[in-house]
């Protein structure tokens, strides 16, 4: 496409007061010869935008626009000229005039460099065309698992007008809820036991014409990508295929294995049972002792049986407190003189359940204490004798009860199965680096059986739960278009499961809607770019397929990558991984960033004006840099910020480009990684760090100090600290001295 570039410089918000706008325009005109270069006192006003709009019309119209004004994070609706116009926003306000002294030579030089970066960028960017595959895109949803979560997700999606395919492995829908005698209260006043309402929910879904139900069915395999999935459903020995667009996984959890809880007397004392047994007994009529069938007159409910215990499950299983209170109520309703003891670590009854807890607390036959059960034995009458330490009664106590009930925790079904590791068959180029990238553990839980290069299920985050960072990415997993809901994702109680299922259904709907328009899902929702692979130069090194955090790329038998654009989240990690640099987006590429770096004006060593580049993650670091300006803090005038979609897109060639250009250093600002990662693309900043570890050796070989390259992890709220980080890096570069390649 023949580009006709228009440059528009805003003078408002202090830009005109701080900078020499004419000199700035001269840089654009002299170095880039754009079709037009204009300035305006108030570019985001109606009149200002009109100036741009006029140039976009007509025969000799501008088709690439550089708006040199405020941060690209603001005024996005005002400066929106449609997908056919290439646009870049040069951030003169937040990142130049608001964080640099007005009228200084260095401030002016910074603004000029940013204009060069923007003009270089639009020179390479191409207008976007949404991805449209040949096959028809499906907007139907597949819901795997027909318990409370699956039923709710199906019902919610159906209500929103989407067709749903619901697959349940048992002969009937309802899941865990079918086993309960009563359910903990879900409605006002939250103090009474309620009849289990799962049957009504099941009926509603079964009668819904938008929902196709397969019971007694499992997933044989799932091929494809969002909007292009083919689900192979095995039922009664036959395999049916369904085309679906997105998947909600609601396969639930199972109780922790009671036989592992020997310390609570399970297996050695006859009258030690699990909470599951109580539901069975209560459903049959009377809670009786397994040893003699006599009605239970006293029972000790031991909470956190296996949960919050480093020897067993490290997490809280969330429902045991409320379920045990509920079961204590079964006993108290059965016999008004019965005694129910509850031994807890902490009583956790969030939300409206607090009201049930309070009402139960008032029951004179309920005896609550914090405590640690230190021994469980049985006497000659098979009574359970337990000793409890650290009680509220101020001493170690002994209780003699008819029955001990263990509130066993929950284990996600996603954690049950063999672990599979990604195997790299041969030693190819880049393989050495691959070994350093921590491989995801995939558990073959036989829930989805995805035909993905990166394993048949989604990777777990903690404790086997296939979750994502829930605050930033609610209901997300690390597989695009696959959303986990209910206790398969996290230990959840009934009301939370219902909320979760609704959330996941909406996420799945967003996914099919955006994907069918050729757009990315969260966190780059609406992005129409997607990676293009220049296969002629591919060396089958597999780095892209292995490093993609979302498992978007499959492989053929020879190791060639088979991209699935609808699985892609457009982070650019593959672009950074590829040693041949064959992966590019139309508006984001190795070449583009490389050329931008090269466009920076690097003064001669004798000018004593060092230059360093900040490669800043767009998600946290770049807004933090804006915050520095908004709060009028100052940073080193030698810095030049280049935003990146994710630090995981870092290609090492840029480091070489920068240093050979005479730039003194490179500071990378990325998100936190590790257990409590905040990277929007899961492991981008971690991958960048791994790649950088290779750079140190290269720099040493070139007789350049490895101090010149540094990666800092931060989050947006760290902005008050950012000037210090940047200025210290600047000072360190002063100590290291000027780049010896300057001026070559």
């Amino acid at each position: 496409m023949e580009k006709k570039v228009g440059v528009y410089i805003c003078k408002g918000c202090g830009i005109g007061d701080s900078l020499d706008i004419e000199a700035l325009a001269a840089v654009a005109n002299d170095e880039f010869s754009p079709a037009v270069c204009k300035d305006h006192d108030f570019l985001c006003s109606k009149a200002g935008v009109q100036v741009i709009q006029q140039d976009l019309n007509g025969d000799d119209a501008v088709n690439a626009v550089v708006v040199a004004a405020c941060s690209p994070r603001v005024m996005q609706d005002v400066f929106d000229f449609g997908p056919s116009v290439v646009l870049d926003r040069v951030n003169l306000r937040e990142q130049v005039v608001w964080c640099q002294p007005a009228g200084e030579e260095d401030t002016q030089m910074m603004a000029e460099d940013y204009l060069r970066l923007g003009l270089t960028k639009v020179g390479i960017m191409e207008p976007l065309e949404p991805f449209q595959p040949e096959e028809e895109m499906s907007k139907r949803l597949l819901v795997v698992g027909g318990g409370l979560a699956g039923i709710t997700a199906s019902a919610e999606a159906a209500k929103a007008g989407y067709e749903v395919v619901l697959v349940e492995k048992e002969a009937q829908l309802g899941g865990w809820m079918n086993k309960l005698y009563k359910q903990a209260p879900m409605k006002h006043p939250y103090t009474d036991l309620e009849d289990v309402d799962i049957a009504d929910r099941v009926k509603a879904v079964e009668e819904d014409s938008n929902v196709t139900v397969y019971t007694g069915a499992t997933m044989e395999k799932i091929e494809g990508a969002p909007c292009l999935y083919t689900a192979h459903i095995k039922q009664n020995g036959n395999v049916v295929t369904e085309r679906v667009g997105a998947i909600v996984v609601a396969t639930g959890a199972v109780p922790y294995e009671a036989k592992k809880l020997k310390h609570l007397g399970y297996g050695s004392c006859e009258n030690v049972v699990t909470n599951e047994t109580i539901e069975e007994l209560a459903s049959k009529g009377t809670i009786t002792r397994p040893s003699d069938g006599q009605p239970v007159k006293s029972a000790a409910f031991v909470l956190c049986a296996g949960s919050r215990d480093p020897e067993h499950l490290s997490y809280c299983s969330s429902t045991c407190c409320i379920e045990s209170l509920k079961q204590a109520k079964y006993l108290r309703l059965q016999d008004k003189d019965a005694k129910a003891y509850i031994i807890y670590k902490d009583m956790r009854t969030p939300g409206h359940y607090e009201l049930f807890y309070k009402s139960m607390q008032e029951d004179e036959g309920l005896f609550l204490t914090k405590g640690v059960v230190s021994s469980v034995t049985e006497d000659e009458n098979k009574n359970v004798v337990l000793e409890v330490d650290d009680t509220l009664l101020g001493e170690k106590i002994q209780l003699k009860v008819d029955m001990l009930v263990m509130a066993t925790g929950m284990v996600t079904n996603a954690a049950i199965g063999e672990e599979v590791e990604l195997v790299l068959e041969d030693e190819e180029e880049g393989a050495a680096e691959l070994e350093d990238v921590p491989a995801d553990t995939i558990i073959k839980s036989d829930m989805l059986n995805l035909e993905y290069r990166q394993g048949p299920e989604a990777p777990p985050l903690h404790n086997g739960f296939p979750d994502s960072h829930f605050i930033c990415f609610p209901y997300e997993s690390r597989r695009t278009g696959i959303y986990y809901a209910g206790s398969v994702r996290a230990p959840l109680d009934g009301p939370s499961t219902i909320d979760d299922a609704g959330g996941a259904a909406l996420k799945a709907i967003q996914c099919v809607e955006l994907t069918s328009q050729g757009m990315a899902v969260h966190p780059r929702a609406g992005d129409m770019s997607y990676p293009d692979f220049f296969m002629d130069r591919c060396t089958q090194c597999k780095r892209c397929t292995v490093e993609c955090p979302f498992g978007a790329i499959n492989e053929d038998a020879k190791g060639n990558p088979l991209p699935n654009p609808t699985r892609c989240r457009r982070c650019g990690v593959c672009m950074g991984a590829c040693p041949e640099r064959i992966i590019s987006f139309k508006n984001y590429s190795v070449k583009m960033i490389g050329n931008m770096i090269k466009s920076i004006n690097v003064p001669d060593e004798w000018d004593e004006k060092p230059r360093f580049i900040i490669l800043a993650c767009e998600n946290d670091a770049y807004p933090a840099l804006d915050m520095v300006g908004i709060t009028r803090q100052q940073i080193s005038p030698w810095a030049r910020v280049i935003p990146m979609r994710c630090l995981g897109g870092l290609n090492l060639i840029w480091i070489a480009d920068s240093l050979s250009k005479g730039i003194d250093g490179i500071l990378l600002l990325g998100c936190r990684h590790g257990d409590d990662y905040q990277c929007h693309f899961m492991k981008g900043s971690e991958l960048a760090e791994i790649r950088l570890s290779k750079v140190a050796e290269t720099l040493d070989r070139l007789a350049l100090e490895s101090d010149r390259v540094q990666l800092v992890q931060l989050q947006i709220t760290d902005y008050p600290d950012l000037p210090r980080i940047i200025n210290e890096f600047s000072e360190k570069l002063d100590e290291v001295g000027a780049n010896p390649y300057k001026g070559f």
Partner: protein
Amino acid sequence: MADESAVQVESKAATLIEPDLNFVRELKEAGGDTLKKCFQCATCSVVCALSPDQKPYPRKEMVYSQWGLKDKLVNNVDVWLCHYCNDCSTHCPRGARPGDTLRAVRALSFRHFAFPSFMGKIVGEKKYLPIMLAIPVLILLLGIKIAGGHIPEGAVEYRDLFPLLLVDAIFVTVTFLAIGSIGFGLWNFLQGIHANAVAEGYAEDKPLAMGDYVKSLISVIPTILLHDKFKLCTTNRDRYWAHILVLVGFVGLFIVTNLGFVGIYGGPLLGINTDFLAPPYSIANPIKLFALLVGIGLLGGILLVIANRLKPKDAESTISYLDWSLIVAVLVTVSTGLLTWIGRVGNLGTVAYGIYFLHLGSVFYIIAYLPYSKLAHMFYRTVAMGYAAYIDRPFGVEGVAAAPVAAPEVEPTPAAEEPAAEAEPVEEKAEAPAEVEAEAPAEPEEEKPAEEEEKKE
């Protein structure tokens, strides 16, 4: 009641705990209906101006109450160090009202140590009220029958209805029965609190040294008379004046009665002339003036008690059956006492004899039921405070006194959390007068005979 609760120390250090469900029910019945709401945050122990630093109450008593651990409660010295300030109830985030719970524990303690035990039941439970009222009425009617059985004519002279000797015979007998009964109860109580204090680790494990104990007992009497601990209350500070007036009234009337007694019987017994002490007194007699003064003081005190209790203050005192049955009895006694005098002076005939009958009945009621009624608290509390001094368990000490959180009004009202549950105490408050929760001198048993004799002249 079945003594189901048992706390046995096992060889292994773990104590076998067997909650007594009935005891929990009884506590709820006796005014501790909110006790199960406690979730053991210990705000109560922190805000209490009186609670000791070591093993402070009432947090631990709350969990004992919830678990129905009767032995740990009726033998508990700490529940008697509580003066029902209700700072704890005001600040309790759950509306568990620890102050009310401790009061209920105290009420059940009278009942537990009652001798004979059926008396504890009769006095403690509302349903036996008709029996309680019938006993004095029947005995007095029998007395009138013996004395002639008719209402005297002419100038009002109470001896014509009831000969002095007969009145004294009835009341001296009742008084000594009461002394014997409460003495027995107090002895068991003292042994019980000692054993429990040893078990809970406040006291050394050795037998009670009675000599030292009596010294400690004497040492706390000034504290009791001056209401030193009571003054530290924040929420219920208004009760200070009411309570001290009632106490002083009782003590004053006790003195007057003893003077009258000496006046009548002292002469023959001692061989000296004690007629100047003998009633009836003229209006100008200093004894009479003193008697009127303390009588009016007592009346004023009990009216203040009632007024304080009727004030609509959400989180303050509630009233239990045991409270109001005593308050009403005191009000009737003191008002009929004064009216008896007016009846004689004003020569009101049959009306005067009726009042006199009521007066004798209410005095009988107070004395005969004293060991099991709310009034017994002055003996139990005195014994307990003496014991606390004996084991050197400090409470309400200076440093702690400054601690209570100021401005309890700003605290969240428990009512906001549990409207339904809170409604009950409010109802109770409306139906009945207030409560006196006082410490009192060690042996004022004869107070009431004193008062009545003074009236009878």
